[in-house]
């Protein structure tokens, strides 16, 4: 068992997705719901084990798309009306060419909103890493951090030992 003075809880290392998923289930069944799980790869199955089923990013993406479409309407129609000049024999408000601008700005704003919303909801950017984070979690190990105080530490430790942890820090 490694010693980690800077960890105010129990940190367990795993070597596979399945092992991590089973450990999450065991710990949640034991009442430890506030888990922080580190993964070197994208694992939807771990999200499921943690009970994460949706993300507000999709709503922000939709809001971004609507904002972009509205902006394009204002830009094309508004500026045409502000300076009404017949060009190329087309009406002042000429939909077919304006649709191109509307399409592009809808896409642009959707992308920008999706990008910034995931950062906001993931609380990024951040300069300081969590004390529970270990460099191996970006290589080939999964980590589960159980934030517990001194009273619950032994019970958490006992539960973690029931799992397939290859290393435990407490």
């Amino acid at each position: 068992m490694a010693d980690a003075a800077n960890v105010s809880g129990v940190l367990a290392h795993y070597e596979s997705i399945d092992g991590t998923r089973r450990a999450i289930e065991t710990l949640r069944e034991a009442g430890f719901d506030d888990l922080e799980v580190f993964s070197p790869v994208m694992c939807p199955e771990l999200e499921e084990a943690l009970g994460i089923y949706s993300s507000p990013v999709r709503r922000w993406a939709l809001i971004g798309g609507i904002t972009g479409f509205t902006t394009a309407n204002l830009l094309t129609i508004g500026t045409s009306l502000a300076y009404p000049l017949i060009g190329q024999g087309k009406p002042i408000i000429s939909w077919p060419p304006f649709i191109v601008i509307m399409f592009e700005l809808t896409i642009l704003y959707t992308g920008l909103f999706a990008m910034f919303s995931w950062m906001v909801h993931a609380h990024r950017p951040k300069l300081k890493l969590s004390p529970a984070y270990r460099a191996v979690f970006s290589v080939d190990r999964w980590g589960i951090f159980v934030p517990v105080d001194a009273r619950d530490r032994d019970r958490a430790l006992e539960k973690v030992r029931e799992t397939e942890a290859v290393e435990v820090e407490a």
Partner: protein
Amino acid sequence: MADHWDTEERGLTLADANRDIMRPIMVSSWRYWTLLAFVFALVVWGCIAWAWQIDQGLGVAGYSHPVMWAVYITSFVFWVGIAHSGTLISAILYLFRSGWRTTINRASEAMTIFAVMTAGLFPLIHLGRTWYFYWLIPYPSERFIWPNFKSPLVWDVFAVGTYFTISLLFWYTGMIPDLAAIRDRLRGWKSKVYGLFSVGWQGTVREWSHYRRAYLYMAAIATPLVLSVHSVVSWDFAMGIVPGWHSTIFAPYFVAGAIFSGMAMVITILVPMRWAFGLEDYITDYHLDNMSKLILLTSLIVAYSYAAEYFITYYSADPTEQASLFFRAHGSFQGPFWVMTFCNVIVPATLWFKKVRRSASAAFVVSIFVNIGMFYERYVIIVSSLAHEYEPYSWGFYRPSWVEISIIVGSFAWFFFWFLLFTKALPTISIAEVKEHLAHQGAHEHG
């Protein structure tokens, strides 16, 4: 030969992926710096030629009536086309869950970014008075005059600008977990720099959850963007009444051509890259085979488009269109026309053979031919059409000057200069996606 990416047979682990893909960042060689210096020298030469053109005026280019759009616009269209396959590979193949994209998407996306950066130079160069480029951007000027949104040239600004922004965000988002992995591997100031760009990524499942959705939505919106950008570029021409341009087939024809040339450029850069960095376990013959199949498919679409264009010209019985086509094949620009046909239709047909598709050197040679053919295709469409309009008054000839040739060479160097910097500073293969593939295959062994 395997018909899949045989990671288990190759015994790859997650730790191997980290180490192998980061190797070019960790080690350095004099060969790399020599190549970079040579490429940079060509960029400088191109800049000198451009400075000369700015100082002397556009007269030093080979422009002469009636050919006032020439190799600069040819290069613009060529590079926007090259930019297409990056997003095709990263977005469309992602949505289709095509696992083989994993090891080629990062370099292809980088290629997209640098190709758009190169393409974006040419309207500025072509302007002559480069410093007035901002007139195309919608901003409230003191006279309240706005850009003409009915003009395809303004559509270009929005289409290419959006494409660049979304491609850059998509590329950067995909790279954040990798930047964190590099941060954890390095020490000192380098670790701090990578840490800054990794936005404090820790790979918590909550982070992945939001990230996964955002990446998926970006892939979803980038998909129609791939189809739209080159369609908009094609309308720069199709909206005009120039014989040889005014065609409804232009949008799909340009999109297919863009994917065709982009995939070829991916092979052109990946084959030397995998050799130089020893990435044969990651970019395998299986990957080359799949890329070659896409080239073959798009080559057939391009060939069909050529045939359809010629048939429509014949069937329309429009004498100016017919004269324009005849001029392409038999007039002053017949050389580029037949080079285009040979490189884009005949040479890719060799990819019907599995041996050619799975041979790195053969696929590389085919890709070079396609790159040449697609540059000539744009040259033929733009220059030969302008050189043979309705009346003898607007018939002429064009030959690029040394200034234009220098700028073109410089632009290729500019593209490769950025790509070389990319290979040294950033992971050329998506580490997180490769590890995801390995982890889900159960190939993970304790490193």
